């Protein structure tokens, strides 16, 4: 990404971070209060969220302006790239915690309470959970949340898999277009990606509503419901974020912010999108299929 600047860009002051801290403070304080039904909790939660959104627009807006005015040299660009890569790595590790919980419950602790495995698992089962046979999916010996149906892989999940995979392709096509300097196909492929992303989120919401209303599969459905909703829920949240980011990139593309050489905002969004895609594949296999 060549640009006019020869010097490393060090801004002299930053006004957005403190706005972000105040926003997050109100958000977290509000959220915790809300969970306890405390006074003004919900209001603070939304106020905090609004401040955070405001901060993001302001901050990214400043960065975009500086970038377009050519204030950044290639070294700054590398910093952005490195930071984005490591940020995605941290996200991978966040999901790893939930996948870890899923594997641990399915491979270790589930069979143990069912009486299978060494170390006195049979006694544990006999004394504490007599009559409990472990089969996945389970809501445990306490039958927490009552009878539920397992979410199959056919139908919505399969459609969603195809949607996300396709969106990965359209995202790459958008990348090829901007690299060749073709703005119009770039915008159109972006539009396709964003649309597929939002359809995914919409269908995911459908699936949740169906699970709650017709299958009695809720967050309360033992370890199966817990892992199902937290994994797919955090993933869905990431898809939403990714789609919003790509939407912002698309609007910027329409306003002609990018060139064939300088379009890191798009690339970062695309990396993020592919990451979300890969997480979904893991989900599809381990949450839905097996």
């Amino acid at each position, binding site marked *: 990404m060549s640009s006019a600047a020869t010097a*490393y860009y060090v801004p002299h002051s930053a006004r957005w971070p403190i706005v972000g801290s105040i926003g997050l403070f109100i958000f977290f304080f509000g959220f915790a209060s809300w969970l306890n039904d405390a006074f003004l909790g919900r209001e603070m939660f939304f106020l905090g969220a609004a401040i955070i959104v405001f901060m993001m627009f302001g901050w990214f807006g400043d960065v975009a302006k500086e970038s377009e005015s050519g204030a950044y040299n290639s070294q700054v660009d590398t910093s952005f790239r490195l930071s984005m890569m490591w940020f995605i790595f941290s996200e991978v590790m966040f999901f790893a915690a939930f996948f870890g919980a899923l594997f641990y419950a399915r491979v270790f602790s589930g069979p143990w309470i069912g009486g299978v495995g060494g170390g006195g698992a049979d006694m544990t089962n006999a004394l504490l959970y007599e009559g409990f046979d472990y089969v996945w999916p389970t809501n445990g010996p306490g039958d927490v949340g009552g009878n539920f149906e397992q979410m199959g892989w056919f139908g919505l999940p399969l459609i969603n898999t195809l949607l996300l995979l396709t969106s990965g392709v359209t995202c790459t096509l958008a990348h090829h277009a901007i690299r060749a300097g073709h703005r119009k196909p770039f915008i159109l492929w972006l539009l396709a990606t964003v649309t597929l992303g939002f359809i995914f989120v919409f269908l995911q919401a459908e699936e949740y509503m169906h699970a709650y209303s017709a299958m009695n599969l809720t967050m309360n459905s033992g370890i199966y419901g817990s892992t199902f909703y937290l994994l797919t829920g955090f993933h869905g949240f990431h898809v939403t974020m990714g789609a919003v980011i790509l939407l912002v990139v698309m609007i910027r593309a329409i306003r002609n912010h990018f060139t064939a050489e300088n379009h890191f905002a798009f690339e970062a969004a695309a990396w993020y999108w592919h990451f979300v895609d890969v997480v979904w594949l893991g989900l599809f296999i381990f949450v839905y299929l097996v």
Partner: protein
Amino acid sequence: MSTSDVTHHTPGEQHDHHDDHDHHGPAPGLMRWVTTTNHKDIGTLYLWFSLLMFFIGGAMALVIRAELFQPGIQIVDPMFFNSMTTLHAIVMIFGVVMPAFVGLANWMIPMMIGAPDMAMPRLNNWSFWIMPFAFTIMLSTLFMDSGGPAGGWTLYPPLVLQMGDSFAFVIFAIHFLGISSVMGAINIVATIFNMRAPGMTFMKMPMFVWTWLITAYLLIATLPVFAGAVTMLLTDRYFGTSFFSAAGGGDPVMFQHIFWFFGHPEVYILILPAFGIVSSIIPTFARKQLFGYDSMVYATASIAFLSFIVWAHHMFTTGMPLAGELFFMFSTMMISVPTGVKVFNWVATMWRGAMTFETPMLFSIGFVIMFTIGGLSGLMLAITPADIQYHDTYFVVAHFHYVLVPGAIYSLMAATYYWLPKWTGNMYDEKLGKMHFWISTIFVNVLFFPMHFVGLAGMPRRIPDYSLQFADWNMIATIGAFGFGFSQLMFVYIIVKCVKGGEKATDEVWEGARGLEWTVASPAPYHTFETAPVINPDTVTR
């Protein structure tokens, strides 16, 4: 922010100064500290913040020790005692040691690698300015009806889920702090990868930079896992999930696995930068190069790698398949090998050196000796069958306090004395510094050494009362605690005195000091290395 409002730095080539806007000093007024993007300002903020938190966490420790002065419930009620042990740990780990290391990273890494600033100066500001807000949430729980967190810093369910309404505040404060640390770590990785002056190759970097690079990696890899773990606690408590409830098919022990997958690398996050600090200081005062630089780098990397496969040594008594107990015993013992390499190298660096014993060197030598004591008790704890006796006793408390107080905290004090003249331009009061060292060292041992004895005799940790036979050593430990705590006021006095004035420091400060930070003026100018420095054998540490 206007585009002319920047500092200039040209990698690789010398260029004429853009003198019209190149040499900004700090902006006037208090807002300077709120909006600053300067790595030195932010480093200073981090360091003052952690000093303040050191006294808050210290006061909590004194409440604990005062209660334990005599057997029986004496001063505070048990619930409050429990929140003191919990918050003391949280404050010391997340509010003192981690931010102090980040502060040092901010101040020193750009100067050590010849960079104009951190890679992401605005993000850097944010990383700091989250800290006070996050700790406001954390500590505000003490003033809520249900009191502060009292289930121990390890937050084990189901106990922790029985906490009152302030539970959610604790969880979100942890999320909040995690955001800060991950952003800070990303910034440090990007800085080290991308901002080194031409010629500052990886294997020429000072050890402090190396250890921080690896620490940052550990932070990015494990803090999100911790965030995930506390999120599961939150949903178990408020949203009906069953991650840690066997009734729903989950498992409370699962939390311990996830927590310690983060927790053990976390203890290395608390010590690797300390390794880097003493690896910088000992060569200076031994007037020799660091012995075995390459092996230091590889040892650090292996410690980081191994720290991911030892976590269940915290869970020997919780219950695990036998193969697991054995695996975690041997992998834990393996960590002692690279750790031993480091201790050997420090000693070998001093061997036949022309040593002098200024305060930073005293603290560093104290570190080497007393950290090793902690390492040896760690080795004892790693023996699974023996740990069944030691676990959850004061022996464990003695172990981790030896590695953390005369370990991590001593390295921070050593670093402060070592670099204060560079930061302020003034020498600190050497006589007082040495006094601070000796008084601290006597009291820290009076405080922590007896804990080995009561621990081996079976005194459990985290309990406000104890059986009579432990009374004598506990009384002694409490005396040590108050002595150590109050002697830290000397530390503040010495720092403030040095900031205010004193004998002017030279650029090099220490006769045997090598490295880029000693080539710039004392105090270091507001912006250093706007043009990349020349790297030659005289300006690198090796």
